[in-house]
Every structure is written in C-alpha cells, then in structure tokens.
C-alpha cells in the first residue's frame, strides 16, 4: 500500500458524497463555522432558532389566526368575565383560560413542527433507481416509470415517482407544491396554520381544531349569557349591547367561526375514525362505486382502534435532521434549481414540482382564503378550494429562479439527465449519460 494511495474514509461522510471541489470553489469556501443541515435545506421552508423551529415559506394567515384568537379571548377576559364571575361562577374564566392555552399551544405546535418531510434522495440512490438492465445485459440510465404498483394488505396501491425529490413516494405520501417537499401521510396544506399537516403534526392539528371549537362555542355561549343577564330587568337588549361593545365584536367573530370550526372538527373526526387523510378523501382513493364500506388498506376496521392509531400512536422522529452538522468536506453549491430545469419538464401534473411565480401564488392564496371564509359550506368544499387552486398554479410552465441552495449531496444537476420526456433528450448520447453517472458514483 503506497502512501500516495492512502485515503481516509470517514463513515459519517460517506452519507453525503463529497462533490469534487474545483480550485475556485475551494478558494471561496473560507467559512470555518460548521454549517447545519437546515441552512442548505432544499425545500421552501424557513427556520428559526438555529433550526429548532420550521415553518413554511409563506406563513399564510397564521398571524391572522393567532390574532383573532388572542384578541377575541382577551376581550372576553377583560369585558365579559368580570360580569360573569360576579353573577355566575369563577369557573368560567378558568375553563376559558385552559381552553385558550390549549388552543394557542397546539396551534403553535402545528405551525412549527416538521409535518413529516421526507429528505430528498441522494445521487447514488437516484442512480440506482434509474439504472435499468436490458435483456442483453447492457446498462442504461433512464428516468424510472412514473408509477410502481405494490400490494398493501391485499389492495393494489400505486406509488408515484416524485421528480423533485427523485424517489418513489412511500404510500400516503404526497408532494406539497407550496413547501416543495414530500410529506408523509400528507393531509393538506393549511394556510390558517401556515404549514402542511402530515404525519407528525396531525394530532396537534386535530387537538387545535377541536379545542378551538370548544373555545368558540364556550365564548359564544358565555357572551350570549352575559348579554341576556345584562338585558334583564328594564334595560333591554340594545342597551346591554351598548354597555358592552366588546361583546359585539366577540359575538360576530365567534358566530362566523363556529360554523367552520365545528364543521372542520366533525370532518376530521370522521377522517380519524376511518384512518383517512383529507387528500385521500377528496381524491376518493378508497371509495368503491358499489358503495362498500371502504377499501382502505390502512384502516384497522374499528373506530376506536383507528382513533388510537392516529392520535395516540408513536411520535415518529423528524427525518430531515435540521440541526445536524454538514460533513466538513462537503461544499454546497448555489445552483438556482429553477434555471437548471429543462423548459419541457413542466407537465400538467400536480405532483411535478414546477416553480410558479410567487405573486400568482399569493393572489391565489388570497382568493382561496376568500372562498373558505365566505362559504359556510361543508369543510370539504373549503378544503377543496384551498387545495386545488394551488394544484392548477403548480402546473404553470415558467420556472423561476429560486435562491435555495440544494442539499450538498445533490450535485451539479447539469451533468445528470434532465427529467425530460424521451423525445427531448436527443442531444444526449447514451455514452455521455453513462460517463456522467460514472463521475457521480466514483
């Protein structure tokens, strides 16, 4: 063994293969501070407190949600509680206080918890997935077929290939176009909460909406009681309203929110009991035309068991390890992922990641918000309007420049085969592709 061939291999660094640094990059990479993985996270998320807190890039209307809850509750405590305490019981502010704390804590947990984001596939995995062997034994590298069928508990399930994350999505996983992440047990992206709702934060979300329903109903009931008591005697209702104008505000807010919160709680209770996600329910993944109970292979066929599995099940860990340190020999490249995409890449497929202009997304977000607030219809409709506008937007063609730094292991994508339809790949020879992959694997 000659010394010049000596090569240290650190098993920790094996996970993320080192990109071959060019001399210019070595010169640029002067920072000695070890970087954490959240700093190079490829999805559209923001991180606070050095990676402890994760939110979607667009916080949606989370400030509005929080504001409404806090303002209404504070008004309740200041203006209604004194009257109710003297006339009824001290339990009222105590109960309201407990509910309020529950609501705020679970809301923040829903918003700041990783919903179950799946990290993107590393280049060797991608190569492995792409490698296909012909009958003659020759090796070619092509994008894998879009779907793969597997059997789960006797049901045929199709796994889709995610072109952004470069992997076959596990069952019940869906790619959120807003956050640009694949999320496990994806329920929906909630603008009120400013985050996706998935496997890891579904129980927080459920507790949030249930306790919010209780809080809203409780405040509504107490305010009505307050006004009724005040208007007894010779005063009249209108005078009572004039004496306590804050109650009017609370009344209005609670009256309009109670429909959606109660409806949403009821809908999600149904989902929990049948172990479904909003995504599956809307798409009708398991409903059969013959009106059978459900072909849901994940259900435990028992309401109590399903509830326990969904709400009291084990808490899986976060897979993205955002506070972990990057191996020191890896140099992340600031490749604007949008510019590398071939223009033909965008398809009319909600699951393909295409970059839509930010402004359009925001206007759509506002319009869908109007839909969901104005309609007192069933939550299903509200959820449909908040999901589908984003899906149609995501199929837009123009990739815009993002400033996201890809994962260090996701090397220069220019060398690898762009994910294009076969017709477009004429310019790339097979030998060229093989060389590109040898370069990556070696």
């Amino acid at each position, binding site marked *: *063994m000659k010394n010049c*061939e*000596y*090569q*240290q*291999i*650190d*098993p920790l660094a*094996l*996970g993320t293969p080192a990109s071959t640094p060019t001399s210019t990059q070595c010169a640029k990479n002067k920072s000695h501070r070890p970087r954490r993985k959240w700093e190079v996270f490829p999805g559209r998320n923001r991180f606070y407190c050095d990676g402890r807190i994760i939110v979607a890039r667009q916080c949606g209307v989370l400030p509005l949600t929080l504001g409404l809850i806090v303002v209404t509750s504070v008004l309740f405590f200041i203006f209604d509680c004194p009257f109710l305490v003297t006339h009824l019981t001290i339990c009222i502010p105590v109960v309201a206080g407990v509910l309020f*704390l*529950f609501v705020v*804590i*679970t809301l923040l*947990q829903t918003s700041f918890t990783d919903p179950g984001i*799946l*990290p993107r*596939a*590393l280049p*060797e*995995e991608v190569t*492995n997935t792409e*490698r*296909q*062997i012909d009958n003659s*034994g020759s*090796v070619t590298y092509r994008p894998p077929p879009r779907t793969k069928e*597997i*059997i*789960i*508990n006797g049901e045929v*399930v199709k*796994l889709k290939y995610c072109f952004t994350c470069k*992997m076959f999505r*596990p*069952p*019940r996983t869906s790619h959120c176009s807003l956050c640009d992440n694949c999320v*496990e*047990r994806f329920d929906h992206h909630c603008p009120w909460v400013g985050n996706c709702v998935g496997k890891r934060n579904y*129980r*927080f979300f459920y*507790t949030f909406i249930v306790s919010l329903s209780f809080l809203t109903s409780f405040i509504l009931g107490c305010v009505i009681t307050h006004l009724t008591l005040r208007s007894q005697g010779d005063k009249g209702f209108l005078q009572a309203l004039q004496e306590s104008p804050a109650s009017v505000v609370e009344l209005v807010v609670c009256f309009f929110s109670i429909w959606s919160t109660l409806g949403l709680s009821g809908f999600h209770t149904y989902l929990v009991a049948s172990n479904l996600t909003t995504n599956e329910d809307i798409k009708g993944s398991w409903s059969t035309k013959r009106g059978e109970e459900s072909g849901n*292979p*994940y259900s435990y066929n028992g309401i109590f*068991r399903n509830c*326990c*599995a969904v*709400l*009291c*099940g*084990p*808490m*899986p*860990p976060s*897979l*993205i*390890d955002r506070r972990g340190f990057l191996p020191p020999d890896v140099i992340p490249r600031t490749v604007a992922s949008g510019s590398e995409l071939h223009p033909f890449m965008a398809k009319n497929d909600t699951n393909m990641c295409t970059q839509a202009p930010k402004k359009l997304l925001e206007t759509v977000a506002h319009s869908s918000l109007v839909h969901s607030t104005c309609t007192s219809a069933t939550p299903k409709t509200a959820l449909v309007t908040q999901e589908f506008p984003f899906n149609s937007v995501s199929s837009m063609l123009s990739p815009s420049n993002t400033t996201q730094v890809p994962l260090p292991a996701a090397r220069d994508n220019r060398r690898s085969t762009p994910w294009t339809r076969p017709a477009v790949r004429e310019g790339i020879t097979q030998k060229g592709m093989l060389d590109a992959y*040898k370069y990556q*694997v*070696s």
Partner: protein
Amino acid sequence: GPEFHNLQELRQSASLANKVFIQRDYSEGTVCKFHTKLPSELDSRIEKTLFEDTVKTLNNYYAEAEKIGGHAYLEGCLACITAYLIFLCMETRYEKVLKKISRYIQEQNEKIYAPRGLLITDPIERGMRVIEISIYEDRSSSGSSTSSSTTSSSGR
C-alpha cells in the same frame, strides 16, 4: 473478497466500490420494514443467513418502536392532556428505540460487515427509505476495478 480485521482497517485501506440499497417493504402498510432478500451484489460477500438476520432484527426493532399497544395509548393520552408539551421534555419511545438501532448497527458493522468489506448506513440517515450498504474494495489488491456489478439491481 478482501479481508479486513476491523472497522479501522477498512477505513484506512479500502476504497468505495459500489453501494447497494435495500428497499422498503410496504406489503403490511406504512410500518417501517425492509426487504430481507439478499441482493445479488452481496452474494459473494456475505452469507445469506447473516444478512437476513440483520435485516429481520432491524425490522423487529422498528415494529417495536411503532407498536400500538396499551403503553402507547397511555403515552398518547398523557401527552394530549399536557397539550403535547411533554414531547418537548421527554424522550419518546421511538427515539429510545432508534438509539438501540444505532448501537445495533454499529455493533453489526464492527463484528460482521467490516471484516467482509461492507458497511451499513443507519436508515435514519436516508430518511428511513433504504438501508444503504457500501461495498469496499481493498486498494492494494483491486487495482483499477470500479463498479463490479452488472447484474440486476438490488432486491425488492
């Protein structure tokens, strides 16, 4: 195959030749489980029973972590009552099992895999998607041999 006496020797004198990925087995749902079939690239490197044992033990660990039983319900109800704040202070059962898995993999690497020129990567570092097994060639003996595998891809 090359003979290495321990993990350190592997690190010092070997070079990475290829990587094999053991995929997830979803036949029982979304529980974490991996296929136990020995991939053809490893045929010559390790005995089938040893490999199957490793994967089956890992599967058992994951099943233990994800088990829904009386203990899990109790934890869940307690957590709910405290508005899930308890997750901030307490180590969950899943995390405890993951630590056990980590130690197990380390032990397996040291005792069984490194002497055969192989290294297992903990699935948690791959998003629980695959068990990545790195195949090493001895630098001094292999010369210029690179990827040795032209046969079918890893077992599904």
